């Protein structure tokens, strides 16, 4: 079973146990509809067949809720759906089988009132105190404005896991942290310096992205997608645009695809440079922090000079891109690449040979490959723990379908691995940018938009700098968005932090956290 034919075999396994699947082809993905009572049983078989659980979300249609989950194997994705009634919105949980599904199901529980039967941890997740327990913001009858109190009270009584015993103490951290960083709450149980347990409490920056997406036109959705997580503005906009373009049957010009590739790889390099510096900074190796932030600044200035925005916001638009590349600006990029290569060739040996850095980064923050797999961990975090997956290679899309590159992989699973995977990814990205520039031929950068049929839906999947991004889009009539669900890789990576900090010391938490660098905003939506 080497390629896409796993679906045929798997469908017959499902038939054997009496799970009837209605197959509905959607643009770019197949939709499998099953009866809701079999939701969990499907997951059990999927687990046996080694499918990866990739995303889960719901959708409201009059008296019904659509419950969706997306699975992947060998780069082939399947969208699974079951329909429940709003009068009794319940179905058996998949989180009992796939830990990766845990928080997404809690999100659907809070936002739609779905009752996932047997869920191992059905505490509220996205909901704090901004709306009441029996209110569901993503149901169509819930007004965008909601019914907020003048001052939303803090979520004081969230039932955190407790630990008891001699010498065990608790450290609450956040939501406002000490550095220049997004807000979230971490609850540690520790003995001496040793972390016994870490529990994350997120959703502090939940700002209703899914709700305010509804009713937008494609351009406006692209702009919103570019602000799901500022560091991933290219990645999210691309995923959302891919979903919309597939749903509308719009094919983007080859030149636009290459430019998107250049933008995405530039975003990857910028973030990896920032992270590598920050990881070094968290273990007080300021030399590297200064060098990497300097290189990042050079890189962003080239972005501003060539594309007109340091973070590349709003450069990808539905149907193509909003920026072109002249020969001079291509030369500027090429020059920046060789400069960066040269600098890194001087800096990396100094970093590599630094024994104090080695002391702090090796073996710290260990994430075992089997745990990474169970949580569906993505991107550099997954790849540093042996999870050999990259959308660009395994489910290639233009322009990556015409490119050759190596996916960085390590299996040590520690902070050092995540550091070196980033470095390898920078090198691969630099090569890709050069390749994309060499492939550019004259041509359009924007395809004409076509209003999709009401009800059209699709999934846009791209490899962002943090890993696989998955955007679900359904259109209503008149080119308006009916449903948008962006799944940032952070949604699957955050739980890995709870695992990789275990048995580390409290002072190493910042560097553990940095090595994973989840997006709070991308998680909280």
């Amino acid at each position: 079973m080497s390629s896409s034919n796993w679906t045929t075999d798997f469908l017959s396994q499902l038939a054997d146990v009496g799970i009837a699947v209605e197959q509905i082809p959607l643009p770019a993905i197949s939709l499998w509809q099953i009866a809701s009572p079999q939701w969990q049983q499907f997951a059990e078989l999927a687990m046996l067949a080694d499918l990866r659980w990739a995303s889960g979300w719901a959708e409201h249609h009059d008296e019904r809720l659509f419950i969706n989950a997306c699975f992947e194997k060998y780069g082939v994705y399947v969208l699974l759906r079951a329909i429940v009634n709003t009068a009794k919105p319940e179905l058996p949980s998949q989180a009992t089988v796939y830990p990766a599904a845990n928080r997404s199901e809690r999100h659907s529980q809070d936002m739609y009132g779905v009752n996932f039967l047997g869920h191992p941890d059905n505490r509220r997740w996205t909901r704090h105190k901004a709306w009441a327990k029996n209110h569901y913001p993503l149901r169509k009858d819930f007004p965008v404005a909601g019914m907020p109190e003048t001052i939303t009270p803090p979520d004081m009584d969230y039932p955190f896991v407790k630990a008891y015993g001699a010498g065990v103490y608790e450290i609450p951290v956040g939501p406002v942290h000490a550095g220049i960083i997004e807000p979230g709450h971490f609850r540690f149980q520790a003995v001496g310096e040793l972390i016994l347990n870490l529990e994350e409490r997120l959703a502090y920056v939940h700002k209703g992205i899914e709700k305010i997406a509804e009713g937008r036109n494609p351009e406006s959705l692209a702009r919103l997608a570019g602000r799901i997580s500022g560091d991933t503005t290219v990645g999210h906009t691309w995923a959302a645009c891919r979903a919309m373009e597939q749903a509308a049957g719009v094919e983007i010009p080859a030149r636009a695809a290459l430019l998107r590739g250049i933008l995405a790889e530039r975003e990857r390099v910028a973030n990896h440079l920032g992270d590598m510096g920050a990881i070094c900074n968290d273990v007080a190796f300021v030399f590297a922090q200064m060098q990497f932030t300097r290189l990042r600044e050079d890189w962003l200035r080239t972005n501003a000079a060539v594309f007109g925005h340091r973070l590349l916001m709003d450069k990808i638009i539905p149907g193509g891109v909003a920026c072109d590349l002249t020969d001079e600006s291509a030369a500027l990029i090429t020059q920046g690449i060789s400069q960066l290569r040269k600098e890194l060739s001087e800096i990396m040996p100094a970093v590599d040979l630094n024994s104090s850095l080695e002391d702090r980064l090796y073996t710290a923050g260990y994430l075992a490959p089997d745990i990474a797999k169970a949580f569906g961990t993505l991107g550099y975090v997954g790849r540093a723990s042996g999870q050999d997956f990259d959308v660009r290679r395994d489910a290639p899309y233009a322009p990556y379908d015409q490119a050759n590159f190596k996916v960085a992989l390590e299996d040590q699973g520690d902070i050092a691995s995540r550091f070196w995977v980033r470095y390898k990814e920078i090198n691969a990205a630099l090569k890709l940018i050069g390749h994309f520039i060499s492939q550019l031929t004259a041509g359009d950068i924007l395809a004409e938009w076509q209003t999709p049929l009401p009800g059209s839906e699709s999934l846009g999947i791209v490899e962002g700098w943090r890993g696989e991004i998955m955007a679900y889009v359904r259109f209503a009539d008149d080119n308006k968005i009916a449903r948008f669900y962006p799944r940032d890789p952070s949604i699957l990576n955050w739980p890995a932090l709870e695992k990789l900090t275990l048995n580390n010391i409290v002072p190493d938490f910042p560097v553990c956290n940095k090595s994973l660098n989840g997006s709070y905003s991308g998680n909280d939506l």
Partner: protein
Amino acid sequence: MLRLLKKILQTGVVTEACKVPKDDELEALGIQIKRHIDKQFSGSIAIRQVDAGSCNGCELEIHALNNPYYDIERYGIHFVASPRHADVLLVTGPVSRHMQTALLRTYEATPNPKWVVAVGDCAACGGEFGVTYASCGAVANVIPVDMVISGCPPTPLALMKGLLGLMVR
């Protein structure tokens, strides 16, 4: 160690000169001073940055202020870990409702006299997110704001000029 020193020497000092801005320059950069500040800051400002719901784009550019090109500390502007040590709150994002109380408490914990700088279009007016069941919109909807630095996100240069604009001129 030698490699390290060699690279430091090779890199040299990259910090760029930056003049304290005049009012019209501030205006051109999209910076509004809501309350004029005089004599309060001479030579040092302690800043507590609070992300009250941003997309993290603004944080990336605030971070850049500490890179060797801008090196904002040379002006005595530094970021502190506690609001109790701060003169200025640098607030980003539309204020999410889940952060409303945290922002209010941070504001209360900051000793007087204190100033609030709203950074980014979201903090200035709600930006792409506006006022909803989940978002209070602009920072001024929650706490009094003294200066607005707009942009999505504002560039480090605009941020630096804005903060220098707080200093005695």
